[in-house]
């Protein structure tokens, strides 16, 4: 455990050194969030009754999604993990006295966290002080806030576990770029990054909400903004946990299989 933690810390420190990239990222995400809100506002003005959540809830959803972007976006990949698979240097990793799955898991966690930590606070703080209707509202009560944090954490673990599966796919197909683009597109869409899930047509939404993608950031963001309340919170968080454990186990299993594949191929 200790060695993984030290790995996490190292990765984290090297990640936060890119301050200028972070600042540029913050500006980009801030503008991006603004444009999204303005776009939704136009739709709200067109037909407020068709809006599936309160406008304030949507605004919170968008700001928090931007703030925690680095934690959840499927296109953030660890290039050195991919590189090590592609050029075969992963074979060296096998010689070290650590297990590959947890090592990579911590590595991607640190990678995402280090990016997110620098970026989330400026965006959240700036969004808190905007005038209505662009203002990020405080959560309704302490319970919602703690449920939000819990759900955010589980969703984050799920995203990392899911990312592991995409790395493992790289073992089998050398030209994995195309497949990854398709996976990224799917995840983004069904996780509610392109449009939030409540905007999906009702019958499609019912199915989509059960998929693992809906257990990523969707639940946390909607708990915060009060779109998911009461007993439903518990149900959703349990579902999140279920998906995390399932994807984690599947990833572990596939990793073991992939390792055998590597060993047989001789790296």
């Amino acid at each position, binding site marked *: 455990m200790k060695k993984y933690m030290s790995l996490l810390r190292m990765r984290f420190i090297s990640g936060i050194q890119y301050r*200028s*990239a972070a*600042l*540029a*990222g913050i*500006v*980009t995400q801030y*503008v*991006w969030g603004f*444009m*999204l809100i*303005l*776009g939704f*506002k*136009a*739709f709200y*003005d*067109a*037909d407020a009754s*068709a809006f*599936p959540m309160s406008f304030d809830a949507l605004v919170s959803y968008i700001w928090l999604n931007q703030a925690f972007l680095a934690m959840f976006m499927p296109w953030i990949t660890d290039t050195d993990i991919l590189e090590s698979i592609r050029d075969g240097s992963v074979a060296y990793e096998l010689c070290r006295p650590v297990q590959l799955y947890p090592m990579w898991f911590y590595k991607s966690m640190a990678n995402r966290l280090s990016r997110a930590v620098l970026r989330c606070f400026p965006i959240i703080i700036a969004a808190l002080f905007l005038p209505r209707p662009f203002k990020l509202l405080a959560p309704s009560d302490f319970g919602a806030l703690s449920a939000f944090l819990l759900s955010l954490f589980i969703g984050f673990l799920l995203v990392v576990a899911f990312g592991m599966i995409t790395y493992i796919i790289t073992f089998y197909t*050398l*030209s994995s*770029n*195309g*497949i*990854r*683009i*398709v996976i*990224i*597109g*799917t995840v*983004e*869409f069904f996780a509610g990054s*392109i*449009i939030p899930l409540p*905007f*999906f*047509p009702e019958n499609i939404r019912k199915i989509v909400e059960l998929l693992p993608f809906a257990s990523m950031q969707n639940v946390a963001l909607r708990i915060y903004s009060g779109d998911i309340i009461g007993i439903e919170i518990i149900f959703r968080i349990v579902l999140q946990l279920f998906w995390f454990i399932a994807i984690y186990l599947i990833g572990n299993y596939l990793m073991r299989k992939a390792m055998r594949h590597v060993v047989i191929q001789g790296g």
Partner: protein
Amino acid sequence: MKLYRRFFMIHLKSAFQYKISFLLISIGQFFTAFMVFVGVKFMFDRFHTVKGYTYSEVLLCFSIVLMAFTLAEMFVRGFDTFSHIIANGEFDRVLLRPRNEIFLVLAGKMELSRVGRLLQSIIILAYGINTCEIIWSWDKIVTLILMICGGTVIFACLFIIFAALCFFTLEGLEFMNVFTDGAREHGKYPFDIYGKKIFKFCTYIIPYTLFQYYPFLYLTGREDNKLYMLLPIVASLFAIPSIMLWKFGVRHYKSTGS
């Protein structure tokens, strides 16, 4: 032109060296754009119109912007990835050739796998044309073509500006994505839905609306003034300051060598 063709053939040959990868990436590009399209569809299933624009009108706008961006990304890729060209010293090689630098950078890199997204934009455009109520006279067709060309020029200019900035610093240039990727994503709706301030920015600072909003008004019959149709040509004047900035950057590079 002959030289450009030869460059193009080399890019094509290179791409075909990795047929499967090329195909998969193209499919991926197609798919990603398709998902955005589904997003728009879901929104219109629910709201039917936005600021008076119908679904098929928005699809026209969306496909034009997407196509322009994709064409720029395919053929102006050398500027889009210029930070690498500077960082690994490839630009020195460019300066050692007896040809215009802009041409060499332009021809030196092409991203043909974007063809998947191009195809998606063509499909959306065809769908939009089919379902909207525009009567396609010659002037509307010219407007459509001008919009695509003007948009490609604007996105190309933005890539050139990005590349010119690379001569001065390689840090923090990610913010340029707001103007390229951002305009692609948010330009799927006519820019006036975002309110007056954004609209002004998109007209006077970076002339997006000159290839998108104004000719779009003419295209959809909201405006009869034929001048609106020609505005994408005016938008192309954006190339002048962009290229000036680039030249300034090259001069700076030659005097610092880095």
